[in-house]
């Protein structure tokens, strides 16, 4: 075992940290999508991380937020604040003391792994970091599974993401879910994300907007699989859907290996 048990941290909602027992050099943050859970979205990831030695130098955070209630950009601001806090303070403050961490410690690599709506949240948070010239931004890398950064098919998103009772109540108009408007392909949120990212790229200052790896599911019916600005060509995974493409299992280790290889 290379990591602590889940430590429930004050950032976001029900976020858990698995801190390495060694001294860390990397931080890996997982950000779920619409109606995802801090850890539930990622299935076997916590178990694989604790039982293998691939992350011995990495602190891991499974970041949670209330995706059903808040607007995408509000959740992006909250995530940005979390990034500031964890990147600009000693990791021992997260709840487990490692002796070798100096007062001026900073992570060499910050790997952000996002699913679906999480990609919109992460991209906007990094744009916020750029606008405030955060030095750790240059250490950030994004891996995006089934990203919703070019919008989603709302009916399919709800059908695939909400439990049956939620689907019924949302259909009846009982619930207000503002983020659904944000995820329409022509929404202000998506259009601004593209425009702002392209603006930085045009000024040769947009390296941070380019994902390290984008992963699409071949059976995708929820998000629009379109390239985002200067992202690399996506990795296409067969026989996986929007929700299963980011969930490693004993017989499907691709998501795990993709994250390990990006460290």
């Amino acid at each position, binding site marked *: 075992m290379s990591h602590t048990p*889940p*430590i429930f941290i004050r950032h976001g909602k029900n976020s858990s940290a698995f801190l390495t*027992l060694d001294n860390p050099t990397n931080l890996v943050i997982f950000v779920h999508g619409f109606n995802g*859970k801090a850890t539930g979205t990622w299935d076997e990831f916590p178990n694989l991380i604790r*039982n293998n030695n691939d992350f011995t130098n990495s602190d891991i955070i499974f970041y949670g937020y209330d995706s059903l209630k808040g607007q995408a950009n509000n959740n992006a601001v909250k995530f940005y604040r979390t990034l500031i806090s964890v990147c600009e303070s000693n990791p021992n403050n997260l*709840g487990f003391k490692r002796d070798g961490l100096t007062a001026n410690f900073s992570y060499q690599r910050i790997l952000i792994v996002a699913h679906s709506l999480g990609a919109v949240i992460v991209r906007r948070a990094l744009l916020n970091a750029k606008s405030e010239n955060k030095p750790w931004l240059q250490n950030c890398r994004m891996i995006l599974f089934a990203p919703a950064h070019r919008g989603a098919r709302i009916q399919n998103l*709800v059908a695939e993401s909400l439990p049956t009772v939620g689907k019924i109540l949302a259909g009846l108009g*009982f619930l207000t879910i503002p983020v659904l408007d944000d995820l329409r392909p022509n929404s202000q949120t998506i259009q601004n994300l593209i425009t702002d990212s392209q603006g930085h790229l045009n000024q040769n200052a947009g390296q941070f907007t380019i994902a390290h790896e984008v992963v699409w599911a071949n059976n995708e019916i929820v998000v629009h699989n379109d390239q985002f600005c200067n992202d690399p060509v996506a990795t296409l995974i067969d026989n996986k859907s929007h929700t299963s493409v980011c969930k490693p299992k004993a017989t499907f280790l691709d998501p795990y290996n993709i994250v390990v290889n990006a460290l």
Partner: protein
Amino acid sequence: MDNKQINLEVITKQYRKKGAAAKGFRTVNSLIKDNKIVSLRILLRDHKENPIDSIREVNERDNIDFYIDYFSILEIGLIANYIPNPLPVKTEREIDFILKNEFVNKYFTEYYPLILPQLLLKQISSKRDGQYFYRSNIKNSTALFDRFLMLNQIVKNDDDIDQFLWFLDDGWTSGYSISDFWEVLSNRDIIKYKLGSSNKHPLNSALWGFIKYIQFLSDFANLLRDSKEDSLLQSAFWHHQSYWFDHMKEKIGDIIKIGISNIRQSMSYISSEEIIHDKKSFLTSSDDIEKWRTDTSQLEGVEADIKYLLDGKLGEPLKSFFYESK
């Protein structure tokens, strides 16, 4: 430090040394140490004999519940081979000092019986040498226990779920009760009138709590199903929610009997045109609605999960273990 000690250190830090549990410990510890027997007896009384009216008392008892929950989690951790067996002497002394106290003991054995802390105390009290009990290494028990901790965190740390369970437990908020909530589910006009767009309205919060709690029940049922190879651990997980699955069985059953049936009723009365013109609904065409009606016709999964969780048989292995332990 070995892994089990690290696990114990982190669990103790989270479930005993901060937040409500830490306050609960301070209250009980000082009342026992200062020999304030009458105050302790009054604070930890059975609410059926003498209701709990003051907010201060409600809060203090809540804190103590969180503190006692720490002992339940320790017991499950022992069964999962997740923490050292035996526990460190300092932890054993605290268990002995607190849980053996006459009034604390009555609280979790007679008034609000919880088998997990009872089992922990029994094991500590009858320990001679070595472990309290022997368990061979169980496949996946660490991963299952991690999942349990994370699910537990979700249900304990959500204001909407709190509001829903408060209603279910016969609580009132701003003049509303569970009957208002069930009524809301069956009548679309009422909800429009009462809720407006305010997410902070207690009925709106309870509505979100209802959805989230059903999701939690489904996730918890899956955790128990995945634990079936270790019936003792499975049973220990179940007992952690036994207040709801056992003592409040009928109320949880109302989720099916009233909640789900009222939703069905709502669906059957609504016209497609009304939904299409409702800006709050994500459905914008007749085709959308047709597909939505088909997609949502199956509520059996929810009902199956709840029936599974309310089956008292899941609690039996831990009870047997309790009666068989030294």
